[in-house]
């Protein structure tokens, strides 16, 4: 790739320079070309290196070629996107650039590597929806197979590939489901900043996800991986080249998490507006800090684990193979040392979103602000000390089980904080049952089942029965889908006016909410029973006596799918076709992000840096000052702005 500095120099001059449109300008297209060329080069190199290896000749599959292909595809992808220009320019000793956001008109900017946090937020929003719906369709494929205990829709190998793809895509992509779209978009606005600390890391964090998604999904076409999202060794060492797709998909998403987490943490620490003290920071900000630090400290261990697995699969080390001095327990430890914080990476931003939105619709301060923050930090810290509860039946370290049972049950305390905060905030409140509020209350309803069943799975004697069964599966779907995914959809309804300038229909939103929560509970509640009655996870055949329950669940899951389809269609229809303009501050929120000049916010966010003089949640104090001294430019006029689009 030729090094093109033109874009950087343009961005330095306050974005006034005319925008040149050319197919050779770095964009997703040049990125794909670069990625393709990189893959071809890597694949060729891998065949040159490993073509004669005994395991390659025997199996007819060359993992080395695939791994190197992916590696160079990533390099080519970023080179094609133009992401390497700035790092190379720094090697030549140029001073760092103060990034000014370019307000490039049109759609083009959404397909480029860009340093505008709002563009990255929108990219993430659509990315996340694509990833979520892809993985969701795979879930429906799983449920279709389970309609019958004996008759098969998919082959058992295809079935496990679908299971693995669904699990991996959901678990890895959804870690950014709130941080990506809303953390990146809203947090700088919330803290009154015009910019973020590391805009290029932020952009990179997004651009890791499409290639990660593509590589992971392409594994299906290469025989997939039949080892699930946990990919326990040595089964994962035994798999074909599809497993390399898992390794790279997950690994790249890990890098994305590191970039996004670093940026959000450093931004919140350093870029808060004057007067935005830690005591005034939105609860959402606290959740993002907890989330970011958890990502930074847990993800490198995952990458270690994936790396070790790659070496075992290609260089024939034996780190995960007992008979040559390794141990399959090593993977289980490395994986779950990341894997447990991982599930809180999913839960914490959901809680942050909930605690952020509920006060707006309760017209009350957050009940126990410090408790809310402590709850999220507590979850983040405890998450590092519980990983062996996934391994209670593995046979390793039985003497540690009481300890891990204790730390796991301690998790209930900070989770309880979140409930205390919710109940306190609703007490003597003025509750507006808008669509976003309904979703947040839905989170409380759903997560409660997830929470109390967490006590079952953490209790070692009960774990003997429920470990690895559908009970566990129902438990974590209640916490993750019932928690963060409901919060995600609520946040979409909440922030669509800000992000697009268009108001959504309450009626359609309510149809979506009620159909979704009923179908969701109807899908996952019976699965607790299915698990207790003895159905293990990831099976394509099950006991005939469980067919009624399984059919009920499958049909409910179709309804859930229809409900989500209803969301996509109506949401897209409203923001693309009908486009009803939003009013200013539609939810009457005090928080800074709503007090910008226009919706969507202008490229510079705020004309001048706001000086914060009050907290974001002083809804119940009739004498409270506005949160900051923002004077909006067009206060009397239409807030919805179309020019950016």
């Amino acid at each position: 790739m030729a090094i093109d500095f033109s874009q950087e120099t343009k961005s330095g001059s306050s974005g006034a320079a005319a925008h040149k449109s050319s197919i050779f300008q770095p964009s997703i297209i040049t990125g794909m070309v670069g990625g393709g060329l990189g893959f071809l080069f890597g694949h060729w190199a891998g065949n040159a290196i490993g073509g004669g290896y005994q395991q390659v000749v025997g199996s007819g599959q060359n993992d080395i070629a695939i791994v190197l292909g992916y590696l160079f595809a990533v390099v080519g992808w970023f080179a094609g996107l133009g992401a390497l220009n700035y790092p190379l320019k720094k090697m030549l000793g140029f001073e760092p650039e103060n990034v000014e956001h370019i307000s490039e008109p049109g759609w083009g900017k959404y397909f480029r590597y860009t340093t505008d946090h709002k563009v990255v937020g929108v990219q993430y929003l659509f990315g996340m929806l694509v990833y979520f719906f892809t993985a969701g369709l795979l879930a429906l494929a799983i449920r279709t197979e389970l309609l019958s205990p004996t008759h098969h829709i998919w082959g058992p190998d295809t079935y496990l590939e679908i299971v693995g793809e669904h699990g991996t895509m959901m678990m890895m992509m959804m870690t950014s489901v709130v941080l990506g779209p809303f953390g990146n978009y809203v947090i700088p606005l919330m803290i009154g900043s015009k910019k973020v600390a590391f805009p290029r890391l932020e952009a990179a964090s997004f651009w890791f996800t499409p290639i990660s998604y593509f590589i992971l999904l392409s594994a299906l076409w290469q025989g997939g991986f039949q080892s699930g999202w946990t990919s326990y060794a040595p089964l994962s060492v035994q798999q074909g080249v599809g497993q390399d797709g898992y390794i790279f998909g997950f690994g790249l998403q890990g890098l994305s998490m590191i970039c996004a987490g670093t940026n959000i943490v450093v931004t919140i620490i350093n870029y808060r507006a004057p007067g935005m003290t830690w005591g005034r920071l939105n609860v959402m900000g606290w959740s993002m800090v907890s989330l970011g630090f958890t990502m930074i400290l847990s993800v490198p261990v995952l990458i270690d684990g994936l790396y070790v697995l790659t070496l075992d699969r290609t260089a024939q080390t034996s780190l995960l193979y007992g008979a040559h001095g390794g141990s399959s327990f090593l993977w289980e430890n490395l994986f779950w040392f990341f894997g447990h914080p991982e599930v809180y990476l999913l839960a914490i931003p959901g809680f942050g979103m909930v605690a952020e939105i509920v006060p707006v619709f309760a017209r009350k301060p957050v009940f126990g602000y410090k408790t809310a923050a402590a709850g999220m930090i507590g979850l983040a810290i405890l998450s590092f000390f519980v990983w062996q509860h996934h391994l209670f039946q593995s046979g390793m370290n039985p003497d540690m089980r009481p300890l891990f049972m204790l730390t796991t049950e301690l998790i209930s305390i900070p989770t309880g904080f979140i409930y205390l905060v919710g109940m306190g905030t609703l007490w003597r409140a003025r509750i507006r049952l808008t669509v976003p509020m309904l979703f947040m209350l839905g989170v409380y309803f759903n997560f409660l089942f997830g929470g109390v069943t967490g006590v079952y799975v953490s209790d070692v004697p009960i774990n003997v029965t429920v470990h690895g069964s559908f009970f566990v599966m129902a438990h974590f779907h209640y916490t993750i889908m019932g928690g963060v995914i409901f919060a995600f959809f609520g946040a979409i309804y909440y922030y669509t006016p800000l992000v697009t300038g268009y108001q959504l229909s309450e009626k359609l939103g309510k149809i979506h909410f009620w159909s979704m929560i009923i179908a969701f509970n109807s899908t996952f509640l019976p699965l607790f029973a299915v698990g207790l009655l003895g159905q293990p996870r990831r099976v394509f055949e099950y006991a005939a006596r469980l067919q009624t329950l399984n059919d009920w669940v499958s049909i409910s899951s179709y309804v859930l799918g229809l409900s989500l389809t209803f969301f996509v269609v109506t949401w897209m229809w409203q923001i693309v076709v009908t486009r009803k303009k939003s009013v200013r501050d539609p939810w009457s929120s005090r928080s800074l992000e709503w007090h910008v000049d226009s919706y969507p916010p202008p490229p510079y966010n705020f004309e001048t840096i706001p000086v914060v003089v009050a907290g974001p949640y002083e809804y119940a104090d009739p004498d409270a000052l506005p949160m900051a001294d923002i004077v909006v430019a067009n206060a009397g006029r239409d807030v919805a702005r179309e020019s950016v689009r």
Partner: protein
Amino acid sequence: MKGVRLSKGARAGALLFGFAALIGLLIFAVAGYLRTSPPTVSVGASSSGSVNLVMQTDGAVGVGPHPSWVGYFVQDASGAWHQTTLIQLPQNTDVHVTLYEYDSGGNLRNSAWSKIEGTAGGVAYINGTAESVVNPNTNTGNGIAHTFNVPALGINVPMYGVSGSAKNFCSTGPCNTSQAHNTITFSFHTGGAGIFRWQCFVPCGLGYLEGNGGPMQNLGYMAGFLKVV
């Protein structure tokens, strides 16, 4: 694209087209990939009330996306060989199985699978000789190549391997009887209708850890179903 202000109708049309394209992509993915499977070879009932099932196991199937993998070929009623492991059998019928084994052999991972089980008389005829337990240490060192194991029907038939250095060793399938092989025959009785999985217990997935990857974990090679209807 940019700067162009579309009318409401055009936006609606574009969106609908997008949804339609997505649905098309989905159908393509499901039908074109996820639902594909090896063919099912049907063994119809013969007049005598029993059926003949003729199969061969090859060291390398030589066709398809993984020509170097071990796998089965099954003969249909017209005598044509199909590379598959999906076999349809009539219920409550005696099935006479003839297996041509062209692969070289090795040790059983678990010697318990030396025992022939679930067949008529608990025996299989290996090149004409009835045996109830195969001994991997005999057979002039050629070991066991594969086992035909149907857990739900209790069937386990191990097959002796042929010498890998035989002059007329069959290196790619489908092989023919002029090449080095062992012939294993046995009979079993199908019970009621059902779908029964079968597999091999010799770790024969060359190039995969513990020999249990690749062909061992993909339908059409060393993993399949008996569909008794």
